[in-house]
């Protein structure tokens, strides 16, 4: 059952080949048996999941079931879920239970999806290896000595290990695409504003976007159909019509113009990763696409710009975690300053503290113009690069990450080396554009991701291209040993 597509599962459930309760039990059993090797879940909601599955079965029986009725999924622990702990991977929120559902959660539940639990993540989504989680690192199912990528590492590992049919994630600088690449699955970060941010704990508000990690583009499309759309509770969500993503999957891609940014194939990119990416692009040419080299001249400024803008916003967004109303509070505070300092020092891990300090610094009087304002200007230049490129191409492609999954602990003491793992993904967030990662030919048994970047609101096109590729290749079907 765990290898079936969401469309197949939905069809089986409607034919009563098995019930949602059976399917949910199956996944819960796999989580109990296999997740101790991975640590991909922070919370497993067995009872609530089975109750939701029962409801789904009843609705299927009466014929008024939603499109995802009875499909067991997992949510990254950054999405608030009413009545179920939402920790954001942090000690700070180890005791936090939200009184509301995130819009993304609400919409998927309304479509009938069953929530198995909440997945592990880098603390407050800050990290590229899932090693900053208060709940311990997640391991890559393809090689448990290696990282799954981050920050949606728990979602990526859980999907790759077939512990859920699909999972939600968030992507601020690559947090869906990079772990999808490192775990050999399909991940989509939609256009900024495509999915509501309501109830999604903010890291960097102008960059954060909810998305999906699944085993195929078709599965991603099934979830995006339900998640996308305007939300009056989020002023930055886009009031733009939502197409039927599943419908568009089979469109012809003959004549598709692919742009390869020369900056994405320079030094720093592993040769064998480059070879896999080129081979995949050659496959798309055989399907009728044409390829040309393009330039995104400011793309090498993306990482430094990101590490000004994202920490600036995070320093403000995380100010609410002060030990006063909820979350971690230090024992026996002597006075207000002591309450703040110790609650925050104890509640936040090292990477979160580092980014809060960087962000506080770049917003300070006297530094604001030199850092924050300058970064915002370059951000516009980066967006302009993409706008120019999309005048001549339909989709931009390149590697998702410069290497395959690295060893646990390898980059933990070198934040800059860690940050460079997102060198190809960050620009997309700065420009607000949709990006995908799909698995291509592995290197030494480790997954490699091809990144697809589209123009604003071109998710349907990205999913279509990815789906056509997945119909003629089998890389997305590979399962890690022991998790088949």
């Amino acid at each position: 059952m765990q290898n079936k597509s969401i469309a197949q599962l939905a069809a089986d459930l409607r034919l009563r080949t098995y019930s949602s309760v059976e399917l949910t039990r199956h996944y819960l059993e796999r989580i109990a048996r296999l997740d101790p090797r991975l640590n991909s879940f922070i919370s497993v909601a067995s009872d609530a999941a089975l109750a939701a599955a029962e409801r789904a079965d009843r609705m299927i029986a009466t014929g008024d079931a939603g499109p995802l009725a009875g499909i067991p999924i997992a949510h990254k622990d950054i999405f608030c879920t009413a009545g179920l702990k939402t920790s954001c991977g942090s000690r700070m929120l180890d005791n936090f239970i939200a009184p509301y559902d995130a819009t993304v959660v609400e919409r998927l539940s309304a479509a009938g999806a069953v929530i198995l639990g909440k997945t592990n993540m880098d603390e407050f989504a800050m990290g590229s290896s899932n090693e900053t989680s208060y709940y311990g690192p997640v391991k890559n199912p393809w090689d448990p000595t290696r990282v799954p990528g981050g920050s949606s590492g728990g979602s990526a590992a859980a999907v790759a290990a077939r512990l859920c049919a699909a999972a939600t994630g968030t992507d601020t600088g690559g947090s869906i695409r990079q772990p999808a690449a490192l775990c050999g699955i399909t991940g989509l970060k939609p256009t900024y504003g495509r999915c509501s941010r309501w109830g999604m704990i903010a890291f960097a508000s102008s960059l954060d976007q909810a998305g999906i990690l699944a085993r195929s583009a078709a599965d991603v499309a099934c979830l995006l159909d339900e998640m996308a759309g305007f939300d009056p509770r989020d002023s930055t969500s886009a009031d733009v019509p939502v197409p039927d993503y599943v419908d568009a999957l089979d469109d012809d891609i003959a004549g598709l113009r692919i742009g390869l940014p020369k900056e994405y194939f320079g030094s720093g990119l592993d040769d064998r990763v480059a070879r896999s990416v080129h081979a995949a692009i050659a496959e798309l040419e055989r399907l009728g696409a044409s390829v040309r080299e393009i330039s995104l001249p400011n793309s090498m400024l993306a990482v430094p710009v990101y590490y000004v803008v994202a920490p600036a916003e995070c320093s403000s967004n995380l100010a609410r975690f002060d030990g006063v109303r909820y979350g971690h509070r230090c024992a026996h505070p002597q006075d207000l300053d002591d309450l703040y300092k110790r609650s925050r020092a104890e509640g936040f891990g090292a990477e979160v503290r580092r980014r809060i300090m960087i962000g506080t610094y770049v917003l300070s009087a006297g530094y604001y113009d030199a850092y924050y304002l300058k970064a915002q200007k370059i951000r516009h230049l980066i967006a302009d690069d993409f706008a120019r490129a999309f005048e001549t191409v339909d989709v931009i492609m390149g590697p998702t990450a410069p290497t395959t999954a690295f060893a646990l602990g390898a980059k933990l003491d070198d934040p800059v080396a860690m940050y460079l793992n997102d060198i190809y993904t960050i620009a997309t967030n700065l420009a607000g554009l949709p990006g995908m990662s799909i698995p291509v030919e592995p290197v030494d048994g480790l997954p490699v991701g091809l990144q697809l970047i589209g123009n604003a609101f071109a998710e349907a096109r990205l999913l279509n291209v990815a789906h056509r590729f997945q119909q003629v290749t089998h890389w997305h079907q590979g399962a890690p040993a022991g998790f088949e």
Partner: protein
Amino acid sequence: MQWETVIGLEIHTQLATRSKIFSGAATAFGAAPNSQACAIDLGLPGVLPVLNAEAVRLAVRFGKAIGASVAHRSVFARKNYFYPDLPKGYQISQYELPIVGEGQVQIVLADGTVKSIGVTRAHLEEDAGKSLHDDRLGGGGYSGIDLNRAGTPLLEIVSEPDMRSPQEAVAYARKIHQLVRWIGISDGNMQEGSFRIDANVSIRPHGQMRFGTRAEIKNINSFRFLERAIQFEVERQIEVLEGGGTLVQETRLYDAERDETRSMRSKEEAHDYRYFPDPDLLPLELDAAFIVDAVADLPELPDVKRERFHTQYDLGEYDASQLTASRELADYFETVARASGEPKLAANWINGELAAALNRAELEIGQSPVSAERLADLLKRILDGTLSGKLAKQVFEAMWSGAGDADQIIEEQGLRQITDSGALETMIAAIVAANPAQVEQYRAGKDKVFGFFVGQVMKESKGKANPQQVNAILKRMLAPSD
């Protein structure tokens, strides 16, 4: 040395919306602590602000009322600082691009001169909650937080440093208070904190262009305290400078009980607010239609009305400015003026008898037991000679205590003035005849005795004799016989 006082005010006025500026929670005053704070007001993780259009509409009305430009594009920014009653760790405000730009208001000084005070800007922001440091919480160093007020919409109105005395500052603050209530954007209730004033005060030697070092006095909630706080602060600053000391830029608090200001924090301890545009809110773009719609029902503004009262009804600047202190008062006056046909008499009565009675009873004009129509009826009885001024005051008092309308009271209490000259002559002749000694004295040149006769006539007539007629008849009868 001759010192000049320089004052600028920042006024926080609560906008009269039903719900908060970024959430749907109610803004009503006086609810049980934390009963009007939703997830957004509490700053829970993952919540997002959505701007209340009504708050924007009210801000636009203010901008237009002071002749300021209303920004077609303004930006919300985060003002970052930690405090327990600030749930998000930042206040959403406006910084570089406020919704209301430069404008001005006119104040009328005690001597009747009119002075323009510049308004630098006005911007929208959310209020913080309230900290309660109180033994009722069981002591033990605990403080309580009430977040009912968190997220209440405020318009912060920032003036130019144009005021030169505590009295001018009060006149300006009263003017803004009058205006926000006049155009219906705030209830201006100072006890409930709907209108709070911060005063920036500095002094400089007369003739010096450069401003002195200023102190900011925070959170003043009455006009009386404003005047006293500034007065105290000016004296303090003079004392420091004349004693050879130097002033530091600082924030001070006014303690009404001790009538003094105390230092809260110096410039060195001042927060670095790390303002930056709020990424949760898009820039606020207003189209012309929204602005036109927001001001469509703006009433005649107080300055315009004051000027009109001055010219149309021939009232003095002072009377005109008194009568336009609030819309209700101005409407009351116009009703009386029109119905009685005597604007000046109406102005005298409203600024005199009525104002005094309202003051004594601590009532607003809207609560007056004597309606404009009834006051006009009373004035008509003065004009047609039924009542003397003195009798009219008696009738007014009866009307105030609910004895009915003017004609009823005149009838029931027999307060009609005696103008029948035959009756008056008979009465006066009898009095003259009964007091030959006084007649002799008067005729001998003792003019004061005339008053004695008037008193006798009034006593006999129970105060109802028409005073002019009494004078004329007495003069004739007491004149030395040929």
